[in-house]
């Protein structure tokens, strides 16, 4: 662990009864680092990501954000308060966007800042405009999610997460549900975030994207980190046989 460690996962374990989904995983992510987690489905990569904001609580191990333990054991009430506070600092983007269909794009973005940070309507509007401008959708501010394409929905979802000014962004297969021609626009937004040195942890099936954007790549299989390293090593010269097999299959398909 270095001084810069931002997210610190220590001996993470998760099991459903006898089924072990995560087996003693440790991972440190520095401030501004971009980490990709790749691996076959069922390898536990989404579970690990969702453990970071305690959406899928671990059964063992600790998760820290700077000097604060995220998955603290607390009485129900205190835990609720604590985790809501933690989650405000961790943005998350989902495969299926999870935009609120009954709210406009503007309302989707301003809802949480208004409710949780008590900012005024005017401030919230400025915030929404800034974030939408960043993802290139300012002209869609008064649309409803149902009026947007998949790629646009995901960009709004990113803007919504960014409006909380998070310290870290988690991406859970953000482009997996998109038509191929819509993937690029979302990737571009993520690249832009990378250039702004946002700390990001990205679960993805997009090997090309992981290779071009990420500082580190983790390959997971059956609940363990099989191999990790810089993208050029993992993608060009993987040492582990399982990594090699996975990448070969992925390139074939």
């Amino acid at each position, binding site marked *: 662990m270095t001084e810069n460690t931002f997210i610190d996962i220590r001996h993470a374990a998760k099991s459903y009864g006898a089924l072990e989904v995560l087996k003693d995983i440790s991972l440190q992510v520095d401030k501004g680092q971009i980490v990709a987690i790749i691996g076959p489905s069922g390898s536990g990569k989404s579970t690990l990501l969702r453990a970071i*904001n305690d*959406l899928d609580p671990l059964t063992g191990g600790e998760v820290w954000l700077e000097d604060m333990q995220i998955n603290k054991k607390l009485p129900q009430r205190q835990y*609720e308060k604590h985790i*809501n*506070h933690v*989650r*405000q600092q*961790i*943005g*998350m983007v*989902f495969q*299926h*966007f*999870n*935009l*609120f*269909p*009954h709210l406009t794009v503007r309302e989707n973005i301003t*809802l*949480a800042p208004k*409710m*949780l940070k008590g900012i005024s309507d005017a401030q919230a509007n400025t915030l929404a405009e800034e974030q939408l401008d960043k993802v290139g959708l300012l002209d869609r501010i008064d649309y*409803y999610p*149902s009026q947007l394409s998949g790629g646009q929905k995901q960009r709004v*979802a990113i803007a*919504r*997460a960014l409006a*909380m000014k998070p310290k870290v962004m988690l991406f859970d297969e953000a482009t997996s549900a998109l038509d191929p021609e819509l993937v690029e626009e979302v990737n571009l937004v993520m690249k832009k975030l990378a250039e702004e040195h946002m700390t990001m942890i990205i679960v993805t099936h997009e090997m090309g994207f992981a290779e071009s954007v990420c500082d580190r790549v983790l390959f997971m299989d059956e609940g363990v980190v099989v191999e990790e390293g810089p993208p050029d090593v993992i993608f060009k010269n993987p040492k582990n046989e399982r990594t090699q097999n996975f990448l070969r299959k992925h390139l074939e398909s």
Partner: protein
Amino acid sequence: MGLDFSVVPGYLDALFLGALWTIAITLSAAVLSFFGGIGLAVIALYAPLVIRLPFRLFAWLFMGTPLLLQLFLIYFGLIEIGVDLPAFVAGVIGLGLHYAVYNSDIIQAGILAVDKGQHEGARTLGLSKVQTIRKIVVPQAVNTVLPPIGNNMIALLKDSALVSVIGVAELTLTSQLAISKTFRPFEFYLAAAAFYYVINLGLEFGLRRIERRIQISR
């Protein structure tokens, strides 16, 4: 002796007034049943057992007994324990609570049908459970359950005729009064039926407008 509708016009004013009372009691009870239904649904789904159980008993009572009996209980029964409600208020409470229980069932189903991703989307932004339910889940559930609740409202309008028995001078009771003076039941009941039908058309029109408005915004 054939039908003779010439007796009806003399009572049109009275029938109109009765119709207004029918509309007033229906709308008041509809509002009560709508918000009561949301409240009951939230309690049934999220409240701790000690709160949930008495409400479940309440729901079971309102669903398992006749509305007419409930109106008698609220209007005549409560007087015995010192609660003397005006007939109109008793009628609104009886109809409103009765339909709140039915609406609650529909809304519960609607809440459970809201995608899990909606909870996750809201919770990861930092919203609490209560905030998520209030701002994200319930509004969406209400949107999807609006058509079946609309059907309940139409049933409620027709059941509002029952409050005539506790003495609210709504459409049915007004036509009965006219009949007792003219001895022309067929004519006045048909006239009342026509009034109900027109009110129903208006209600359906209003419900459809609300539904369409909400569907556009989705």
